């Protein structure tokens, strides 16, 4: 399967009468974008704003961040199952705009957790999105629409905006073409390189809002999915999106998947990228064991891997889950490199492990995402909510988006951490 991602580096965004791109400047007709978003009957109205680094703006109630992308050579093929028709993602040509992100807010969210982004000050300094030119969209619910259904509508509005903007850059010269070309089944290959697979724990149902899982895979949820093999290009090219909350992970992060891109970068040089096994964290111990055995078997006996990188989704229970996958892999002789996020900021690093198995002797700290920082901001504007929007903290205190200083767990500042390995962060004892 071969995917070409053709990137254009956007230097600025202007509001204008026509949506198009010229000389690395993206011009957006906000009215046209609004009409596009309002085609979804679940959405009554939408606030759209362009925000720039340095603006005294705080964007709250973030549900997702998306990079503008569209297929160049296929029709109605973007984010299949979410927006486009169902097809297998990951082949052909895709246009991607760099330096721009779509910030998707659900202003009336009832979720406990929701992320934010500041466009100036420490919050902007820490976030990759704080340095980009962004389009903030905040849809409002139409009468009679159910809460969870509306969340899906907000998500899809973000994806639609992404496609709309990328389509508008048609004809613009490309700054870089990345080629992702991999034939997974070549077990017979004449390569002596070690075969490295990737185990992608992509969801955990433990926080399911109202007991319903977020759709994140070809338009559906994956709660009951058995471990399965997918092609890494499906992940990079819209088959997989973020969840309905940002906890160190959003669609942008998936589109630029750290581990997958790294394995591709080294494929044929010092390793052979043996493929991706996709799994879900499990609440029930028997199901967990069954799925861990299945995952390890796919990694060893179907993909023929010598080693596997294992990443985890946010939370404690998923930590136990990936450890079991790792243990089963090691039992079969597959060497593991397993990610953790220390869930506390006290103690030693060893104290933060939720497993204890000598075979799991290579542990990568992807970031202590509950670490807290104080964000001072005298905001001129608050988008996606109001100054009275409650901002989550795990302590029994109330704080609001308009407070002069708020305390944030870093996982809820969009674009600081990256559970998929793309951030230059490590956890150390101090």
């Amino acid at each position, binding site marked *: 399967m071969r995917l070409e991602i053709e990137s254009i580096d956007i230097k600025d965004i202007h509001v204008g009468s026509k949506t198009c791109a010229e000389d690395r400047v993206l011009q957006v007709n906000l009215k046209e974008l609004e009409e596009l978003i309002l085609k979804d009957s679940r959405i009554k109205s939408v606030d759209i704003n362009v925000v720039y680094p340095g603006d005294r703006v705080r964007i709250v109630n973030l549900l997702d961040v998306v990079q503008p992308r569209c297929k160049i050579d296929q029709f109605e093929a973007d984010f299949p199952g979410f927006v486009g028709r169902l097809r297998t993602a990951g082949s052909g040509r895709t246009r991607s705009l760099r330096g721009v992100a779509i910030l998707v807010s659900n202003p009336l969210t009832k979720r*406990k957790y929701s992320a934010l982004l500041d466009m100036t000050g*420490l919050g902007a300094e820490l976030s990759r999105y704080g340095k980009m030119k962004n389009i903030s969209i905040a849809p409002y619910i139409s009468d009679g629409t159910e809460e969870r259904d509306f969340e899906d509508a907000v998500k899809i509005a973000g994806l639609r905006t992404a496609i709309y903007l990328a389509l508008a850059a048609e004809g613009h010269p490309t700054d870089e073409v990345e080629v992702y070309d991999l034939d997974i089944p070549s077990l017979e290959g004449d390569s002596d390189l070690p075969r490295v697979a990737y185990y992608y724990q992509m969801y955990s149902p433990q926080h399911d809002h109202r007991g319903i899982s977020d759709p994140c895979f070809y338009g559906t949820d994956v709660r009951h999915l058995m471990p399965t093999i997918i092609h890494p290009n499906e992940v990079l090219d819209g088959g997989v999106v973020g969840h309905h909350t940002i906890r160190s992970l959003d669609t942008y992060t998936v589109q630029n998947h750290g581990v997958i891109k790294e394995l591709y970068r080294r494929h044929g040089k010092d*390793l052979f990228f043996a493929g991706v096994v996709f799994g879900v964290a499990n609440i029930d111990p028997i199901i967990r064991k069954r799925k861990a055995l299945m995952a390890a078997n796919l990694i060893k006996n179907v993909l023929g891997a010598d080693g596997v990188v294992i990443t985890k989704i946010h939370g404690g229970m998923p930590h136990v889950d990936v450890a079991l996958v790792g243990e089963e892999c090691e039992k079969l002789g597959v*060497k593991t490199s397993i990610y953790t996020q220390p869930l506390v900021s006290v103690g030693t690093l060893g104290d933060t492990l939720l497993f204890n198995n*000598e075979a799991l002797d290579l542990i990568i700290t992807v970031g202590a995402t509950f670490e*807290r920082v104080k964000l001072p901001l005298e905001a001129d504007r608050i988008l996606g909510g109001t100054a009275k929007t409650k901002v989550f903290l795990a302590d029994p205190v109330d704080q609001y988006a308009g407070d002069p200083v708020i305390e944030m767990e870093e996982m809820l500042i969009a674009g600081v951490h990256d559970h998929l390995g793309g951030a230059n962060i*490590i956890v150390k*004892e101090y």
Partner: protein
Amino acid sequence: MPKKNLTVVHYLNQFFGQVGAEDKADVGFVVKDGPIGPGVALQKELGGRAEVIATIICGDNYFSKSPEEAGEEGLKLIEPYQPDLFFAGPAFEAGRYGVSCGAICKAVGEKLAIPVITGMSEENPGVEMYRKNAFICKTGISARDMVHSLQGMTKLAFKLVSGEREMNLVSRENLPKPHEYGYFHRLILRNEYTEKTAAERSVDKLLSKIKGEPFESEVVLPNLERVEPPPPIKDPSACEIALVSDGGLVPKGNPDGLSGRGNLRWTTYEIDDFLPEDFKSSDYEIAHTGYFPDEVLGNPSRLVPVDVMRDLVKEGKIGQLHPTFFCTSGNATVSGRCAEMGDEIGAEMKKRDIHAVIFTST
């Protein structure tokens, strides 16, 4: 106007404070103006930027008999000086002296909120006891390492008062790197920027592991204590059984202030009031952010099985349900504190003569 020098108070034991040797180890606190003994060397390292204005001296035995109390006593003598910096020792390998240095640093650091710096060798018991409370520089085992140790302590002290933002930390706090500044880490974890992404590091190290080459894990596995399960109770119908849960079920308003994550507290509720048979879901909330709580709020007995316990008591299968429910929130709480809470709850249960306990979690 030239900037005012930083003021320093220095703590020494009776030996380094020139009061006397082991025969003077029972001597109580003495205050002297200016630097004494190692303080003179410290002053030299501090140069013109800081001045040792007083030295507090105490006998090793006197101090180490009850270190926390002695720390408070010492603090009272130090407070009037309102120093900008506090140094203790270094104590090298000396155990009582190390504990004294740690305890007085703890008292001063907590009360005056100034940098407190001491020095010890790795084996000194003061390191494990007080590493959380002080910057403890790594030293050699004896006073032969004095000048070198004081140089390290001074360098660290100046870094701490510099007010610099550490751009290498996500939090931007002014926290010196333990290995760069030669101190024992203080049991806190911080996100640090690295040259390589987690993805790059994980693949690099995995390839080394596959090839059988040396590799370095970013977390070293701890040696965990094995807890043997106790023998089962013989006759439940003769037992009083208590309920404990870490699911964070609390009365609406969370009156005891349990945290939803990283909670450090436990509390108790009387079951007859807290979970009556005609309970109302709206009377509860969940101080726990690790799960979606609708099922538990719908019927709290799903977490704290009071309904079943009441039935079993009626049926005579269980002697008695202990009237108090022991409640905490266990979500990313550091394991050391979990063990302490277990000891505390266990001690309380022993006092109450409870025979058996049912733990329920989420």
